[in-house]
């Protein structure tokens, strides 16, 4: 910020600044003894459990991999064909002549697929940073 000061203030202001800059570090801070503070922090830390998080993330990744593997086996590597095939089967099984049911089912299945991929990516990214 450029705030021009009155010319006459320059000399006295710089002297005041020097005095303040000498006094402020001493007055603005005082060393505080630990007095058990660190011990209190260490007691409040969560129990060591990052390994449990690894297991959870590993399980999530494994489930995602299994799901992708099943889809690849059932319908080859074309995931769109898998979705279309599943849609055909669901529509065939459905007895409800509800307008838009097929569209809603398509959206729902795609959403589940996207969320599964997102969950897998999240688990993978969490595994890169243990905590």
């Amino acid at each position, binding site marked *: *910020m450029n705030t021009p000061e009155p010319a006459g203030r320059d000399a006295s202001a710089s002297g005041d600044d020097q005095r303040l800059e000498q006094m402020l570090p001493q*007055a603005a801070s005082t060393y505080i003894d630990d007095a058990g503070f660190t011990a209190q*922090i260490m007691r409040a830390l969560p129990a060591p459990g990052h390994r449990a998080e690894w297991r959870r993330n590993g399980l999530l990744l494994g489930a995602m991999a299994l799901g992708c593997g099943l889809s690849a086996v059932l319908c080859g590597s074309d995931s769109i064909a898998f979705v279309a095939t599943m849609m055909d089967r669901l529509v065939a099984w459905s007895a409800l002549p509800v307008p838009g049911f097929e569209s809603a089912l398509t959206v729902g299945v795609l959403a589940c697929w996207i969320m599964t991929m997102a969950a897998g990516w999240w688990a993978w990214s969490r595994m890169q940073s243990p905590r």
Partner: protein
Amino acid sequence: MPETEIPRVTSRDTELIARVLASDDRHAFSELVRQHQSAVRGFLRRLTGGRHALADDLAQETFLEAYRDLARFRGDAKFGAWLLGIAYNRFRTVRRRQRETVEWNGEIEANDMVAGQETAAAAAPAMVDLQQDLAAALARLSADEQSAIHLCYAEGLTHEEAAGVLGCPLGTVKTHVLRAKDKLRTYLRAWAPA
């Protein structure tokens, strides 16, 4: 350099942080806490107007959050400054919740006054009076001005580092510092040389 000025990111800090991240080394984290607790608690005591209990509660939350998010510290700033940024955010959250402006109300804790006088035990009585007046003058500043002055002068941060801690633009920090110094010059006019 004042005793409590935050040291530059030392290799010791880097080593301790690496040990905590690699193997959840609790001893390493306790060393980090021990090194930085005075600066964090002192900063929060200033912000909370000398309320030691509230300041220590906020300091505890600060270090717990630092432990949880230690992986996010990229090492491109002082570790102490990163901690003060967390502490400042904690303070702002409490202030918002309480729907009041927590300003230094001039009721400096007796402990602070005694400690300040102990460090100047050999000083002349006039110097002790000056420091008391300076402390009282600092208490009349707003929380933002106190924060800026504390970070830049007590902790030795640059304006850019202080802006990072406070989460505000660089120009805002400079404005706070300028206004704080103008006010202090006015409050301490009696101490100016004739």
